[in-house]
């Protein structure tokens, strides 16, 4: 061997850096076009920029990036103009686009009044670290997301991408394994199993044909960080998989990506192609003699397929049904061969750990859960989006400092963590540090990273019912308790939300929950009762109100609320509510006041939203009988 992997890599890197540098001599506009950006209209924004730039004959490149995590301010762009710090602008529309092109790109006024944040330290405008969010956030795996072009391997390489692979290829696999184990990196797919221990088990297997699979099934119905990472920085995950493959001596790897993620599938395929072109994937990687390639398998949308053994069955062309363990996948996985299955985020940490060192990694987070936690922070919180904070940050800091608390002056009620397998935690436990073990003790789980903030308008029985309905539908039906137990629980919850709950319902729920937990083969059933158990534990009074008073305290369960127009507040002259009603349930009384025909009302909230704030005449009442009472009083 004449050239070392490091030398081959250095050549690639020099070339990539020159290429990137030559491109960045001129001004660049980066438009965030991950799914969140696209939904907010980023494609139009990109076109507006192109048109306006062309019209003015400017020499400016318009590029696409992934998700920066600030979804609440989409569409977002970053403008890099030599002589200025890189600046990020949010809430882009056609007008602002033209303004930026005219004043900043053609002229030289950075329009600070519209800028959200600067990305480079400077004397004029605050950077991320100047905001509360920046103080608590620490980005490792999201570091480059939204800041590099996900379709260009050169940008990734220019920022030390694949350097870890080059280093690893000159080490003994045993040494790589030692480092991953020493880092105590824990799997980010939910359970927090140590990655190094898993890799070691696979490495020790007698069978020599081995596989590496990246789990990008992301089944939690309220989460999207794995997709964002794949859409924003696919090479990071590929690099982690190559390192894993070298360690466990696998020659073939797979991405298991759900087919509902077409953009992620496309960007990963594109990245794989580029990596092959550069000799970073395929035969003889970086001239080292090591062979490894990766293919994409599109998952067909069954939650249970996120579970390891079910995932493997579905790749084999069977129904995705979990099987007994042992044997574990590391002994008998895909095609019966030893297989390492890790989550997208788990792989994404690996290159950082090998490049920057085990100690560096362990400096962040807690002793037992080192590193960071990545969440999709959504629901009733001001700054929605993707966040990454060190493990050990408290929930309170995450919601109130990073998320900048609950909007519209509403009262915080609970935070749902971990999706269908997780739980709802109340205000009183918000000082729980975020790490695998503390969250488990509080009744929730770290889970995949979905985090939904709920306020006073959200009903805890309804959310428990929502998740149970999800798991019930997704149960593969193999285990009786999971199939029938969840159905029975769902029926009880449905009855409660309709005001048909009975005395003793809660005791039965509790018992069923324990049975389903213990009687299920896989963790779909094993964790399905969690949302019910945590809401019972922390919000028992809401259940009681539903059962005993037929009242939904959050005014959310449609069977238990009625809409009412307060005659003293109604203006008579305004017709906003009438126009907004989709079922013509609102009529004008003889005296000119508006009223609601309860028979026709579908409780869609439209009138409540339509009624102008100066009147605020529409209210929700629970239990619904209150409407009659009020009417009687008014007719006295």
């Amino acid at each position, binding site marked *: 061997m004449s050239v070392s992997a490091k030398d081959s890599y250095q050549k690639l890197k020099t070339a990539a850096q020159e290429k990137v540098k030559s491109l960045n001599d001129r001004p660049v506009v980066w438009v965030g076009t991950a799914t969140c950006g696209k939904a907010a209209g980023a494609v139009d924004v990109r076109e507006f920029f192109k048109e306006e730039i062309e019209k003015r004959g400017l020499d400016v490149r318009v590029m696409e990036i992934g998700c920066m995590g600030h979804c609440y301010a989409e569409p977002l762009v970053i403008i890099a103009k030599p002589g200025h710090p890189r600046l990020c602008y949010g809430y882009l529309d056609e007008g602002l686009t033209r303004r930026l092109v005219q004043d900043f790109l053609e002229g030289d006024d950075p329009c600070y009044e519209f800028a959200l944040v600067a990305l480079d330290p400077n004397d004029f405008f605050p950077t991320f670290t100047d905001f509360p969010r920046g103080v608590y956030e620490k980005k490792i795996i999201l570091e480059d997301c939204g800041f590099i072009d996900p379709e260009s391997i050169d940008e990734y390489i220019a920022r030390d991408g694949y350097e870890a692979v080059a280093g690893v290829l000159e080490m003994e696999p045993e040494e790589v394994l030692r480092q991953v184990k020493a880092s105590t990196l824990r799997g980010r797919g939910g359970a927090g199993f140590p990655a190094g221990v898993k890799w070691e088990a696979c490495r020790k297997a007698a069978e020599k044909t081995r596989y590496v699979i990246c789990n990008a099934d992301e089944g939690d119905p309220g989460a999207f960080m794995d997709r964002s990472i794949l859409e924003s920085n696919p090479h990071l995950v590929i690099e982690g998989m190559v390192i894993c493959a070298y360690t466990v001596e696998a020659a073939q790897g797979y991405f298991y990506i759900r087919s509902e993620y077409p953009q992620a599938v496309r960007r990963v395929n*594109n990245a794989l192609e580029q990596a092959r072109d550069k000799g970073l994937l395929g035969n003889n990687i970086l001239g080292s003699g090591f062979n490894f390639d990766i293919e994409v398998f*599109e998952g*067909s949308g069954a939650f249970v397929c996120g579970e390891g053994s079910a995932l493997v069955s579905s790749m084999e062309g069977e129904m995705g049904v979990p099987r007994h363990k042992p044997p574990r996948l590391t002994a008998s996985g895909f095609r019966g061969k030893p297989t390492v299955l890790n989550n997208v985020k788990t792989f994404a940490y690996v290159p950082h750990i090998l490049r920057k060192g085990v100690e560096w990694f362990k400096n962040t987070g807690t002793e037992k859960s080192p590193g960071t936690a990545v969440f999709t922070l959504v629901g009733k919180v001001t700054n929605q989006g993707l966040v990454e904070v060190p493990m050990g940050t408290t929930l309170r800091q995450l919601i109130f400092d990073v998320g900048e608390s609950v909007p519209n002056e509403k009262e915080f009620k609970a935070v749902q963590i971990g999706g269908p397998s997780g739980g709802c935690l109340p205000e009183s436990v918000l000082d729980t540090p975020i790490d695998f073990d503390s969250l488990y003790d509080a009744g929730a789980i770290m889970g995949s990273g979905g985090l939904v903030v709920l306020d006073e308008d*959200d009903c805890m029985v309804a959310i428990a019912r929502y998740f149970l309905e999800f798991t019930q539908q997704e149960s593969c039906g193999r285990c009786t308790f999971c199939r029938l137990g969840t159905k029975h629980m769902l029926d009880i919850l449905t009855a409660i939300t309709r005001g048909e709950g009975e005395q003793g319902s809660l005791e039965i729920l509790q018992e069923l929950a324990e049975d389903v937990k213990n009687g299920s083969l896989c963790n779909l059933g094993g964790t399905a009762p969690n949302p019910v158990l945590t809401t019972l534990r922390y919000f028992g009074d809401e259940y009681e109100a539903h059962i005993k008073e037929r009242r939904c305290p959050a005014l959310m369960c449609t069977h238990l609320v009625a809409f009412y127009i307060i005659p003293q507040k109604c203006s008579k002259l305004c017709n906003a509510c009438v126009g907004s009603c989709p079922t013509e349930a609102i009529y004008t009384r003889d005296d000119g006041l508006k009223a609601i025909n309860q028979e026709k009302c579908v409780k869609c909230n439209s009138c409540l939203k339509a009624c102008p704030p100066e009147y605020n005449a529409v209210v929700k009442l629970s239990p619904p009988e209150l409407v009659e009472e009020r009417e009687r009083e008014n007719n006295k």
Partner: protein
Amino acid sequence: MELAAGEKEEILKHVGAVLEEFKTTRESLVPMLQAVQKKVGYLPELAMEKIAEGLDIPAVDVYGLATFYNQFRLNPPGRYQVKVCMGTACYMIGGKVALESFERRLDIQEGETTPDREFSLERVACVGCCSMAPVVLINDMVEGRVTPTRVDGLLLEYKDGEEKISEENKEEARTKGADNSSSNEEGERSA
């Protein structure tokens, strides 16, 4: 379901191509079904039978798989596929109301297609833009903050308007040739 004239030939053509393209092993079954659905829009019985023949496996195995996975649809979709997000954030903020509004206006239930095959209605899990909740996808156009009034507006827009070209497809038209792996169905998501 009765196949329209010419539909049968169309299906056979696509299934033939898929059987050529993939290795005829059991492992190819899911990718094959995905490929057929991408081309035809759904999985006709005929296609499943032909694939079973091609792989030399019982047809029930293919049906079993097609019904197990949420992605596969056994009935033709509408020209406009309405997908209401029922992810956690959307559900809590009015996804159900949006779904019910569509059901009421289109006079079909979730999972059905209107008799004129113009609209079909289904639910999906988190689309990834929770900050715009509740979210609805019409083909692959994302509509945010969908209230019942907005539902009426959207239906009018689509009923009368000419075929809307989605962003994704516009983009493809522009970059044709650069990426030939993508098809018109690219934005396809079902749950």
